[in-house]
C-alpha cells in the first residue's frame, strides 16, 4: 500500500511519468530540496528511471541490462522518493488535486508535474493495429524484438533516427530488414542528401535495404491477425514477421487534455514550465513552449533545472536555444545543429572524404555560422555549436572554418 500522507513540513509533489525527464526531476529535486518535498514518481512501465537512449544499444546487444539505469532508483527510494511503477494514471482532477491510478488508488497532491513523454505515431495504414506492428520506445519494445528468433524478415517504417537504430539493432540480431522512408533521404531532419547517402551506403553494407520516398500501401494480415506482408505502392508485397513503426512521435497528452489543461500539439507551458493550471507543471516530450516540442535531452535537462527553481520560488526562465543533435548510428557519429537546409541567402561550405567516412557541411549567413552537419568526425561539433550560440563573426576564418577549431584558433593566435 502506497504511503503518501500529508506531512506537515513537506509539500506533496507528484510526477506523472517515470521516463527520463520524470526520473531525473525526481532525483535532482530530492537531492536539492528533499527536505521540503515528499516526491511520488509514477510510471506506467514496469521499468523506471532507465536511459531510453540506450535502448538501441540494448537491442543491438552491445550493452547489458546493468548498463541501462539513468538514475539509481534504489538510492532515490532510500532517500525518500516514492516510486509507483507499472501503474498508469487514469484520470486527473485539477480542482480536487487528486489523481487516480490504474490500480484504483486515488492520490492527492499539492503540486503536479506531467512528464508523460510521447508515443510512436501510428500511421493510418490499413492493418497498422495488428499485434506484430510495434513502436520502438520502451524497454518492453526491445524485449519483444529480442524474442524474435532466427532470421526473420522485418519492416521498419521510418528512416529517422529511431527507425535506423531499430533497423541496425535488428540486422545485427541477424534479421533481414527493409526500411521504408517517406522522404528522399535518410535522417532528413538532421542530415543533408550528401551525408545521408554516405550513411545509407554504410547501412546497406550492413545488409539493410532501403525504400526511399516510399510508404507502405497497406499491411496484409494473416488469420491470426498479424501482418504477414507489406504491400508497396508498386503493388509488390514483402513477407514480414514484424513491423516497427518509427515514423515520428506524438506527445502523450491524453491525461492532460481530459483534465482540461490547455494543449496544442502538446501541453502548453510558460517559461516556468507551468501549465494553464497554477499547481500543474509539464516538461519533456509532452510539453510545448512557444510552439516548440522537445525530443532531445539537452533542452529537457534545462527544463528540469528551470522547474526545480520555479518550484522553490527562485527566478528562472526557460528559453529555447538551438540544440545540436549528436547521434551515433552504427558506430558513425553524426552531429547536426541549426539550419541545415540552407535558405536562398545562405552559403554552404563542404568537406568530403568518403574513404575516411568524413563529411562536413557548414551553413553560413552574412558572416555567421547558422548550421552544421558533421558526419564521421564530430570532434569540432561543440565548437561549431558555440560559434552558432555566441553568434561569433566567422568572416575572418571562412577559409579554414570547415577544417575545425585547431586550424581556426591557430590562425587567431
Amino acid at each position, binding site marked *: 500500500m502506497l504511503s503518501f500522507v500529508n506531512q506537515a513540513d513537506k509539500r506533496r509533489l507528484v510526477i506523472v511519468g517515470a521516463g527520463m525527464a520524470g526520473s531525473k526531476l525526481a532525483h535532482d529535486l530530492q537531492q536539492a530540496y528533499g527536505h521540503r518535498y515528499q516526491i511520488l514518481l509514477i510510471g506506467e512501465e514496469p521499468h523506471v528511471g532507465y536511459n531510453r537512449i540506450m535502448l538501441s544499444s540494448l537491442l543491438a546487444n552491445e550493452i547489458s541490462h546493468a548498463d541501462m539505469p539513468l538514475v539509481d532508483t534504489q538510492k532515490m527510494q532510500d532517500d525518500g522518493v516514492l516510486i509507483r511503477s507499472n501503474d498508469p494514471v487514469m484520470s486527473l482532477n485539477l480542482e480536487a488535486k487528486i489523481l487516480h491510478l490504474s490500480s484504483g488508488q486515488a492520490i492527492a497532491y499539492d503540486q503536479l508535474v506531467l512528464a508523460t513523454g510521447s508515443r510512436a505515431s501510428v500511421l493510418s495504414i490499413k492493418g497498422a493495429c495488428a499485434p506484430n506492428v510495434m513502436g520502438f520506445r520502451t524497454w518492453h519494445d526491445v524485449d519483444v524484438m529480442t524474442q524474435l528468433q532466427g532470421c526473420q524478415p522485418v519492416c521498419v517504417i521510418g528512416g529517422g533516427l529511431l527507425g535506423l537504430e531499430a533497423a541496425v539493432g535488428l540486422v545485427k540480431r541477424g534479421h533481414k530488414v527493409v526500411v521504408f522512408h517517406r522522404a528522399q533521404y535518410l535522417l532528413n531532419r538532421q542530415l543533408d542528401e550528401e551525408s545521408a547517402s554516405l550513411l545509407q551506403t554504410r547501412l546497406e553494407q550492413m545488409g539493410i535495404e532501403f525504400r526511399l520516398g516510399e510508404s507502405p500501401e497497406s499491411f496484409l494480415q494473416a488469420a491470426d491477425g498479424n501482418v504477414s506482408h507489406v504491400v508497396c505502392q508498386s503493388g509488390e508485397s514483402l513477407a514480414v514477421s514484424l513491423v516497427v513503426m518509427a515514423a515520428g512521435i506524438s506527445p502523450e497528452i491524453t491525461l492532460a487534455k481530459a483534465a482540461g489543461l490547455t494543449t496544442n500539439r502538446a501541453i502548453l507551458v510558460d517559461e516556468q514550465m507551468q501549465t494553464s493550471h497554477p499547481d500543474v507543471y509539464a516538461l519533456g516530450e509532452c510539453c510545448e513552449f512557444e510552439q516548440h516540442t522537445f525530443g532531445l535531452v539537452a533542452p529537457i535537462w534545462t527544463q528540469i533545472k528551470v522547474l526545480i527553481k520555479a518550484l522553490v520560488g527562485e527566478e528562472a526562465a526557460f528559453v529555447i536555444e538551438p540544440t545540436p543533435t549528436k547521434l551515433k548510428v552504427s558506430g558513425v557519429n553524426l552531429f547536426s545543429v541549426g539550419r541545415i537546409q540552407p535558405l536562398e541567402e545562405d552559403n554552404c561550405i563542404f*568537406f*568530403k572524404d568518403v574513404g575516411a567516412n568524413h563529411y562536413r557541411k557548414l551553413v553560413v549567413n552574412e558572416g555567421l555560422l547558422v548550421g552544421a552537419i558533421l558526419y564521421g568526425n564530430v570532434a569540432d561539433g561543440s565548437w561549431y555549436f558555440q560559434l552558432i550560440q555566441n553568434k561569433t563573426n566567422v568572416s575572418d576564418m571562412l577559409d579554414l572554418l570547415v577544417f575545425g577549431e585547431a586550424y581556426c584558433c591557430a590562425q587567431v593566435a
Partner: protein
Amino acid sequence: MTTTVMPASSVKTTCPYCGVGCGVNLTIPDSVNQGVPPVSGDMDHPANFGRLCVKGSSLAQTIKSDDRLLAPMLNGQVVSWESAIETVSSKISQVVKDHGPDAFAFYLSGQILTEDYYVANKLAKGFIGTANVDTNSRLCMASAVVGYKRAFGSDTVPCNYEDLERCDLLIMVGSNAAWTHPILYQRIAAAKKQRPDMKVVVIDPRETATCDIADLHLAIKPGSDAAIFSFLLSDSVQADIVDHDFIVKHTNGFETALVQARASTPNLSYTADFCGIGEQDLVRLVGWWRDTAKTITFYSQGVNQSSSGVDKCNAIINCHLATGRIGKEGAGPFSITGQPNAMGGREVGGLANQLAAHMDFATPGAQDLVQRFWQAPNMATENGLKAVDLFQAIEEGKVKVVWIMSTNPMVSLPDTAQVRRALEKCELVIVSDCKAHTDTTAMADVLFPATGWSEKDGTVTNSERRISRQRGLLPAPGEAKHDWWAICEVAKKMGFQSAFSYQSIHEIFAEHAALSAFENNGKRDFDIGHFSQITKAEYDALTPVQWPVPKGRPEGTQRMFENGRFFTPDGRARFVAITPSLPKHQASLEWPFTLNTGRVRDQWHTMTRTGDAASLAKHTAQPYVEIHPQDARQLGIKDKALVRLTSLYGEVLLKAKLSRAVAPSQVFVPIHWTQQFANAAVVSNLIPQVVDPLSGQPESKHAQVRLEAVENICYGMIVSATPLSLADCLYWCRIPSEQGFHYEVVWPKGQTQASLKAMGAGQSKVTAAVKKTEWLEYSNPITQQIRVARLVDQTLTLLMYLHPQPESLMADWLISQLTINTALSVSDRLAILVGIPANVEEKGEIVCSCYQVGSKQIKKAIATGICSVEALGDTLKCGTNCGSCLPELKRFIPVVAELSA
C-alpha cells in the same frame, strides 16, 4: 700561393655561375648510392676566399638531375656517337661544299670551357673557313669588349677585385650585384662597413637590392647612363680635376671627346633632366667624383645591353682616362661579366668579330700569324655573323647548319618567334647540352649529350682576368662526352685529323697558351706564354692566376696599364667622342610601358641548373612583372594577379608584383623562366632585335609593351606525384620541388570540383583500374575555394587547389606528403586540403634560402624583441651563410621599430 691539401675524393674547382668565378671545394660521396655532399667555398681562391652565394652553396643539389641527356639522338631516336658524328660531319662538309663555309655556324656559350671554345674557334675559322662563331656572350658583354678595344686597343679589364675594396668611390652602373654577383657585392659591403667613408653610388632605373649599401641611388631614365658620364667628363675639366700629364702622355682624342661632351650635356640641369633625376642628386655625385681619386666605375648588363652600349662604356672610360683614374689601385672602369667563362671565350677569340687570342681579322698580320700557327687550310678572312644577325641569316636560309653548344637561344635571344622560325627553317640544328629538355633541345635535329660541371676538366677566366681550373671528379653519365671531344671528333671526321688529335685537355690549353704568345713580344695584351709547355701534372695543379702570364712572369698580372701603355698601335689610349642616346624604341600611346629585364637572386640564366635545386625556388617561385602600384591601380591589376604583357613581337603571361622599386610607366621582368618551367613566361618574346651597331649586343633590357589584367580567371596550385600536361590551364608554372611536381596555375573561371577531378582523372591512365582511387573534396562558395585530392591506395597522388584570387600557399608540407608510403592518417587527410598540418608553424615566404627561414618566422622573432639583423641571425640563422638575403632582412627591422615606437 698556399694550397690546402684536399682529400683524394675532393677537388678544388670553379663555380659555373656568374663571372665572379668563385673557388669551390667539391667532394664525391663515399658510396655511389649517396648524393654529393654540399660544396664549400675554397678558402684559398682569391675571388671568394671561402665565401659562396646561395646559388653556389646549392651546387651539390643540382648535380643529380633527372633530366640529363644520356645518349646522342638523331631526330628523336637514340643513335651511336659514331653515327651522330658521321651525320654531322658529312652534313657540314656537304653544305660547305655546296654553299660555302659561311653556311655553317657555331653558336657557343659563356658556360663552356676555354678549351672547348678554343677547338670550336679553330675548327670554324681555320679549317672550315668561316668566322660564324658567335656565342651567348654577345648578349652579355659584347659592348664592354668593343668599348675596351676602342679605348685601349685591346679587350683588357684593367682592374681587379681588390680594387673594389680599396676604392673610395664606387659607382655601380646597371648592376644589381647584390643578386647577380653576390660575392663581389659582399666584399664591397664588408669594405664599406670597415670604411664607412667609402661612398657607393648606384645608377639604375630600379631600386634594387644593391641600393641597400648605396649612399646615393640615381634612378635614371632607362638607357640614359651615358649622359651622366658625358657630364662628368666636361665637369672634370670645369673643376680642373683632369690629369693633364696623363692625357698628354698617354691618350689621344681628348679635345674632340670634350667638345662633344659639352655639346651633348651642356650643363647640370640639362643632364639631370635628360636622365630624369633630381639636380641635387647629380650634384652629390659630381661632388664625390671631383673629390675622389680612387674611383671605380663598376658596370654590367644595364650598360651593355643597349643600342648604344659601346658608347656608354666609352663615356665611362673617357672619364677615367681624363682623370688618370686607371692603372692604379682602387681606380678604373671595371666591366663585370655575367657568365663563368665569357672572358675565356673572349681570350680564345670565340666571337664572330674576333679572330683568335685577342687578334681581330683587321689586326695587321694576324690572319697570316694564326694561319701559320694552326697550319690552317681554310682560314676565314672576315668577321662572321653576330648572334642576332646569325639567326636572321639562318631564317633567310644563308646558314644551313648550326651547332648550338651549352646555351638556350630559344629563351635568351630577343624575339623568340624569330629564333623559332630560324631553327625550324635550318637544315640541321645540332645541340650539345647536358639536359634532355630545354626550349632549344626541342628544336634540335641532332643532340649531343655533354658532360657538365663536376664532370669535365678545363679552365675558365673570371671578370678580373683570373684563370682558374674547373675540375672533373664525377664520372660522365651515360654516353655523355666533353664538348671539346665532340668538336674534335667531327673535325677529324671532316679530314682534319692532325690538327685535332688531342690526347688530353691540357694539350689544348698549352696550344691556346702558345698561340697567345706566338710572335707576341708584348704587342698583344693577352699572353699566357708561361703555360705553352704545360704538362698534365702542372695543368692539374694549376692555381688561379691573372693574365697576362707571359714567359718569365708566372705570378701573372694584378692590374693593367700601370705604366700608362695601351695596346693601340701608338700605345696611347683613345678618347671616344660620345653623344648620349636613349633606347631605340620609346613609349607611345599604344605601347606605354617600358620593359626592363634582369635576374632574380636565386636563379641563373635559363634555370637549366638552378632549376634542379628546390631550395633555390623558394625566394622567387614564379616569374613576375614588377609594376609600380600607381600603374597597377590604374590598370586594375592586383598584387600576384595574372597580367598579360604584349609587345609588337609577342606576349607573355606573368604574375604581378607591385613594387615601388620600379618607376611609374616602367616594368621589370626576370629572364629565367623557360617553357620547361612556365607556359608563357619567356620575356624574350617581347624584345625587338634591336642591337648596338658596333657590338651587335641586343637591347635586351628595353622593350615597349602594353599591360592588361587577365580577366575571368581563377588561380590554382597543383601538387602531383607525376608530371602533368596542363593544356587546360591558361597559365602554369612548375616550381622546382624536392619531390613530385608542384605547379601554380590559372584556369578560366567557372571550374567546379567535377571539372578539376576530370582534369586530374585525365592525367592517370595506368593506375586507376588496378588500385583504389579516392577523391577528397573541399568547396567553399563564400571564399570561392575548391580543393580536391586524389588518393591511390590511401596515399596522396594529386592535389588541386583553386582560389578566386592569387594566394601564396606554402606547398612544402603537401609535397612531402607525396612520398609517404603508409596510409595517410585521418587528420592528415583533412590537412592535405588545408595545406598545413594543424600543429606546424607556417614559415611564410622564404627569405633566407640557405636556412629556409621565412617571413612569418622573421616577423615572429622580431615581435619578441629582436631588433637587428645580427640578432636575427643568432636566433634563426637567417643571413648567416651566404648573406644574400641581408638586404631583405634589413627591411624587416625598421617596420617593427616603427610599430613599437
